[in-house]
């Protein structure tokens, strides 16, 4: 049997009376780079938080390589949140030690090499680094793991084109071929070249889930154009 990397079955999540996600069904295979696309407030971040175990679904179930969200799933999921989450008193090397201690799949040497390439001072404390450098450190930590599922929440939001190319190349260079990468963004044109498949979310529901090539073959459109049509105001 070919086990799916991620399986979401009838997942719903409400915050009070507001439905953030409604009846989401997804089944993602291994070895793909998948875009999680949708306008702001469509539930992208909520879905990612549910998968990495920061939130608990109100209804439905989630399974990552056969594990419910929990210690076993967290060991094989590498999550990049859309904010700085490293303690600011830690040095960059402290952060590396921290990841090495907790994640068995963390490749310490690889992370050191990547940081050297980026000329990030390893002994500097996080609070002394600029916002952009902090983001780079987080990306290095997350991509230095040999995880089964990478969850990247808005990795290219608010960065300049050079940084964007660097980030996309880092992802392409470092993800494991059997791993699946789920990238959430509202900047579709920037990442559509690297996507195998895409998921459209709108108002907490999956509008479509298809392969990038099939969209182009069937409709002769890029995802970006299609997206603009679907979400035309």
């Amino acid at each position: 049997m070919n086990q799916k990397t991620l399986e979401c079955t009838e997942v719903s999540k409400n915050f009070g009376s507001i439905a953030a996600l409604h009846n989401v069904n997804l089944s993602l295979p291994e070895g793909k780079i998948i875009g999680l696309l949708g306008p702001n407030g469509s539930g992208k971040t909520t879905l990612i938080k549910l998968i990495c175990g920061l939130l608990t679904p109100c209804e439905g179930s989630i399974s990552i390589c056969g594990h419910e969200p929990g210690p076993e799933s967290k060991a094989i999921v590498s999550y990049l949140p859309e904010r700085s989450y490293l303690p600011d008193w830690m040095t960059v090397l402290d952060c590396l030690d921290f990841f090495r201690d907790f994640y068995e799949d963390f490749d310490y040497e690889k992370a050191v090499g990547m940081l050297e390439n980026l000329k990030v001072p390893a002994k500097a404390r996080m609070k002394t680094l600029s916002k952009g450098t902090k983001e780079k450190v987080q990306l290095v930590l997350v991509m230095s793991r040999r995880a089964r599922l990478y969850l990247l929440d808005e990795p290219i939001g608010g960065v300049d084109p050079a940084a964007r190319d660097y980030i996309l190349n880092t992802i392409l260079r470092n993800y494991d071929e059997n791993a699946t990468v789920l990238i959430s963004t509202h900047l579709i044109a920037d990442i559509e070249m690297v996507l195998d498949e895409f998921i459209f979310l709108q108002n907490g529901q999956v509008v479509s889930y298809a392969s990038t090539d099939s969209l182009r073959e069937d409709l002769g459109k890029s995802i970006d154009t299609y997206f603009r049509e679907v979400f035309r105001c």
Partner: protein
Amino acid sequence: MAWQFTGDRPIYIQMAEHITSGILKGEYQMGEKLPSVREFALMASVNPNTVQRALFELENMGLIETQRNTGKFVTLEESRIEMSRNEMGKALVADFIKSMKALGYSGEQIKDIFENERKAGESNESENA
């Protein structure tokens, strides 16, 4: 630098065309080893699976060959490369004629304008040389 792709057609097809023209231009010589899937992916900033698919297409066309464990190589059969050159050339000319007709040119006029421009181009080249 990422390669440029258009939005209307699958990227793997555009990728395959890009590599084909590389072979025709001699950027990739006959019998030469091609970059790996991941190298191509990084060069073009595209998904490795897309590269895989493009290379699969090229292999079906007989332009490249897989050698066990060592990677992919440009074919040594010149006829295969010539065939691709012909196909690409024909397609380009067909496109050109279609566009010219759309502008209102007749077949004769296209031929004339083509001849004139070709001569002008050649004299320019010799001047520059």
